[in-house]
């Protein structure tokens, strides 16, 4: 209903809408159902084939192009067939020369057309193959060129990365937070006092503390060492450092320092030491524990076993874990005593580019050297610096 009857159509549509509202109100169907039915998508898989298999079609043509070819004459009738089949065969034999003559042109045409189609198809395929091969060649050449460019760029990238690492190392050496002498530990203690040097030995760090004007005393199991300290005017006591710590009033210390000692403690003592350190430090107090770094393999060859009292090395992460589980936060690892470069494997100098392969080989060798250097000749010592939270937040002192 259009044109002159458009009003009628409008009215019918309005009526249809009213009826739909009525159905919805009566519960014939729900709005959800309306949405579901309208939104339900048609799911189908695209039909891509063109219906004909070209090779099969050509094979059929080759089998059937000759209308006068011999055909197999059979019959499905059991009795009549015995008569009909020989008769038909005879007829076919008699008529075939005539049929050949009559269908000569058609046979010629069919044969020619089939032949032409086959030749054309093969020609087309050859041409397509040629084109594909040409394109493939072009693509391969482009691929090799790109590969070469990529190798050059990758080499350059590696050089830049190494250069950056060297620059960063140099910078770290200049103004690094890594303390290279016990004096640097003072910064971590941040002027808190008093400080206990647990296992003070010959009292070298006590001297540093005294020079900085920090109230401190030491405790060491070796009576001789303690006596020698005292002879230099340092406050050093002979005794078990864990027992001594236990005897101190709670939250009475500003800092605890223990250098090259924890690797001599039993596991129980180690645990007690960290627990007691937390109790005896005042809020905001600092615990600083230094030991030999077992992730630097050369320490086993020279440093660690020189001292018979050292029982076992402690992995940096284990010590960090002890501090953290003891309630310290934050906890930092400081890497100390780097092995000097002359003790490490030297890198191969690449003066000029010899070729992609050789370049890659030399870079690999150098990468391997770097890894080996890090593993064997890294930092001999490390220290854990741990702060007791001061209750106002867990920020370490500036």
């Amino acid at each position, binding site marked *: 209903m*259009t044109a002159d009857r458009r009003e009628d159509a409008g009215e*019918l*549509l309005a009526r249809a*809408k009213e*009826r739909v509202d009525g159905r919805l109100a009566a519960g*014939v*169907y729900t709005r959800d159902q309306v949405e579901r039915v309208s939104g*339900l998508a048609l799911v*189908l898989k695209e*039909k891509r084939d063109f219906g004909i298999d070209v090779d099969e079609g050509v094979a059929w043509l080759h089998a059937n192009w000759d209308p006068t070819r011999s055909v197999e004459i059979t019959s499905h009738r059991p009795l009549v067939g015995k008569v009909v089949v020989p008769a038909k065969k005879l007829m076919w034999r008699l008529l075939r020369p005539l049929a050949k003559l009559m269908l000569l042109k058609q046979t010629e045409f069919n044969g020619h057309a089939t032949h032409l189609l086959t030749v054309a198809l093969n020609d087309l395929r050859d041409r397509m193959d040629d084109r594909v091969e040409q394109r493939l060649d072009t693509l391969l050449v482009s691929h090799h060129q790109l590969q070469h460019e990529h190798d050059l760029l990758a080499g350059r990238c590696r050089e830049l990365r190494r250069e950056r690492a060297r620059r960063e190392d140099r910078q770290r050496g200049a103004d690094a937070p890594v303390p290279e002498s016990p004096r640097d530990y003072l910064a971590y203690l941040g002027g808190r006092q008093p400080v206990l040097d647990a296992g003070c030995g010959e009292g070298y760090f006590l001297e540093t503390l005294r020079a900085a004007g920090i109230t401190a005393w030491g405790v060491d199991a070796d009576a001789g060492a303690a006596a020698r300290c005292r002879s230099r005017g340092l406050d050093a006591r002979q005794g078990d450092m864990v027992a001594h710590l236990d005897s101190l009033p709670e939250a009475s210390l500003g800092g605890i320092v223990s250098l090259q000692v924890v690797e001599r403690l039993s596991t129980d003592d180690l645990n007690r030491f960290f627990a007691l350190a937390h109790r005896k430090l005042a809020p905001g107090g600092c615990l600083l524990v230094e030991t030999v770094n077992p992730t630097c393999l050369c320490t086993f060859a020279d440093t660690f076993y020189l001292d018979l009292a050292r029982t076992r090395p402690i992995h940096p992460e284990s010590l960090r874990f002890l501090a953290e589980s003891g309630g310290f936060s934050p906890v930092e690892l400081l890497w100390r005593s780097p092995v000097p470069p002359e003790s490490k494997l030297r890198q191969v100098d690449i003066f000029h580019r010899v070729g992609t392969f050789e370049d890659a080989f030399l870079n690999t060798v150098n990468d391997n050297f770097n890894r080996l250097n890090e593993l064997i000749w890294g930092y001999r010592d490390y220290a854990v610096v741990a702060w007791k939270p001061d209750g106002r937040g867990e920020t370490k002192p500036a």
Partner: protein
Amino acid sequence: MRIDQILPNFSYGDAIGNDTLARRDTFRRWGFDSDVFAQYVHEKMVAESRFYDDYRRFDAPGNVLVYHFSIGSSISAFLATLACRKVVQYHNITPAAFFRGVNRRAAWECDRGRRELASLAGRTALALGDSEYNRRELEELGFSPTGVLPIFVDFDAYRAAPDREVLRRYAWGGPVILHVSRMAPNKRIEDLVRTFYFVRRVRPDSRLVLVGTEVNMENYGAAVRRLADELGVADGIVFAGHVTFPQLLAYYRSAAVYLSMSEHEGFCVPMVECMAMGVPVVAHDAGAVGETIGDAGILFVAKDHPKVAELVLMLLEDKSLAASLVDSGRRRLECFGVARREEALRNHLQSLGVAF
């Protein structure tokens, strides 16, 4: 003088085949020599046609050749080599977009057809569309001059006896909602199914009969079936497939309403068939549907499925409304009658300078 016709597929019993034969007879009646030249010919049409290449023997600047265009073919290239006056009769090509994701070959063929059609612009003495909608497409492609000549439908043939078996099958039971077309995505068969879901909520005895071949669109047909299953209406839908002409007549006879949700039609022959068979139509107003059905059907623009279902139900309930549409249809048939059509054809030929 000759007025011939040329086409890629000369089929038996389809709209374009019938139109071509009817036109040839008209040309001959008017005293012109006229033949049909075709590339692929149905065996029943062999006697009525020649191979398209034969036309070269008759090619002369004074002659007229009508090219029925509904698909791309090598005839377009052949046409470019001829000296005669060429008339394109455009039966429309479904835009390839409808077939993308459904049938790659069909999409490719539609694309090719549209490209070929565009290449004919400027080479024709006249370009005719089956509908105003088709004519506008020709004009947009740059054809000039253009005109409208509806496709020929032989109404007398619809007076033949319908298939008894089909009539018997649908004589009892609920109302039949009919759709006739090949299974193709532009026909939006899935929207018929969705609408039928709401019809069934009110009339559980109603049936949706889909007449038309599924060849080459089997995947689309299967998807529509799956949708019907999912909506729980599959038992009410009949996929009748390809049918004979007497069977088609019987389906029209059995139908209470004809429903179309198609989104692209260049003419839509079933609309005219409905007029001839007295079936009221509810149709989505797309392509040439509106101008073909005129006031003999209820048209809607928005595809609101429950609302469309109500339009169908109103026709099932309100006999006087259905009857008024059928009456309008019968009157409207005259627009597609032989007299009107021959007059239009004569005018078009005269505009080319053909003397009668």
